[in-house]
């Protein structure tokens, strides 16, 4: 049920259908791993049932004080991660333009040299002993969020003979219904690698790619400390229940 202190009436309308021409299709052969991991048969379409309309909620109590500070949440006392210090902030909205409050955001990334803290990453760029690479936060009443980190570096990956990922931060987002569940990646304004990347290139519409590029936001910088990037995330909107026909079958 509602989180304590919330006076919002829960919404129960069905979610807008996903525009699968806007999202990358399952099979994008330029991104080689998709070839054997993409379904070939048609998806089964149906209007949301309660199983998709409902979704888990996460209380603010689960968030630790440093969960949204990647510069310090893995660092030794008195130390901090190496790299270009940045604030990433924005809002989680839905397709009606309404802020999504109480949304859990999780993010992960490589360090400033493009190296991930993961045993499967064998890139020769070194680990930063003060950087783990994970963080999380929950959006406020207006859907806003912010975290502090270092700008990740680009890194090479075994796809084509000389493919490099643009600098990016992975985002995982929960809305209010499980049908809104989304994982995406944020890129940085002006990075020339964006338009050469086969993973980005799976998205066919240029405007859709641009929706994943965070803008440099000088108004939100901290002078003599950190630059800032603004990145809004849009989740599926939902229909009003005004004209729903007994959605719960009661």
């Amino acid at each position: 049920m509602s989180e304590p202190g919330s006076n919002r009436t829960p919404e129960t309308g069905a979610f807008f259908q996903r525009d699968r021409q806007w999202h990358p299709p399952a099979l994008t052969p330029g991104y080689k791993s998709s070839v054997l991991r993409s379904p070939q048969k048609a998806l089964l379409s149906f209007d949301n049932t309660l199983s998709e309309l409902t979704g888990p909620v996460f209380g603010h109590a689960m968030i630790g004080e440093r969960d949204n500070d990647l510069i310090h949440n893995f660092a030794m006392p008195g130390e901090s991660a190496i790299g270009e210090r940045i604030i990433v902030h924005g809002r989680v909205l839905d397709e009606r333009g309404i802020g999504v409050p109480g949304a859990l955001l999780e993010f992960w990334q490589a360090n400033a040299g493009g190296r991930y803290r993961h045993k499967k990453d064998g890139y020769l760029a070194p680990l930063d002993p003060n950087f783990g690479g994970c963080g999380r936060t929950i959006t406020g009443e207006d859907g806003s969020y912010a975290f502090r980190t270092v700008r990740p570096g680009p890194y090479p990956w075994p796809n084509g003979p000389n493919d490099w990922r643009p600098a990016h931060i992975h985002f995982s987002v929960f809305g209010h219904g499980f049908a809104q569940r989304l994982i995406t990646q944020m890129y940085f304004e002006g990075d020339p690698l964006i338009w050469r990347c086969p993973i980005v290139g799976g998205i066919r519409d240029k405007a859709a790619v641009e929706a994943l590029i965070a803008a440099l936001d000088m108004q939100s910088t901290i002078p003599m400390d950190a630059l800032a990037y603004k990145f809004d995330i849009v989740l599926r909107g939902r229909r009003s229940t005004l004209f729903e026909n007994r959605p719960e079958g009661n």
Partner: protein
Amino acid sequence: MAQSPDRPKESPSQTAGPYVHIGLTPNFCGIDGVYASDLGATMVNDRTKGERIGLRIRVLDGTGAPLKDALIEIWQADADGLYNSPSEMRGAADPNFHGWGRSPTDMETGLCSFETIKPGRVPFRDGRLMAPHITLWIVARGINLGLHTRLYFSDEEEANAQDPILARIEHRVRVSTLIAERQGDAYVFDIHLQGEKETVFFDS
């Protein structure tokens, strides 16, 4: 020209990549001390109502090889068929059951395990009861947009035969791709991403 609806579009999805564990299960991949535990790792406690069951799930690629870098999330009703969600208007769900779980596939074997309870039946939009089921969401390297499917239970034959979603599957031979086989206290479920035994995935 007419007015434009001018709505923002949903953010396009991108793959979770091979290092999804860093963000979603950091303790599993050796990043200790940032979070006390991995979110969604424990679903039941001593007071949770319902029959304890295990889920043993694998995700197989087009060659039949198990994915060793996938991550699965599950979402399900409690033993009485109520969801622990603000959008659940029929009553309060079991306070000792959150209903959501998350587990990576094992990096050596590709096996993904959940310890949970068997869910109760939930009504479809017209009030008919759906068969007990668990919603699955699968992400991995090579998957551009999370895949949505359901796990139904082999020992619920009668309910499965009446389920409105299973009834929507035109090619009846494919219904079995959504039914997990009971083995003792656990259900075994192989998800085939492509090929002859391809699992039915949803757009909902």
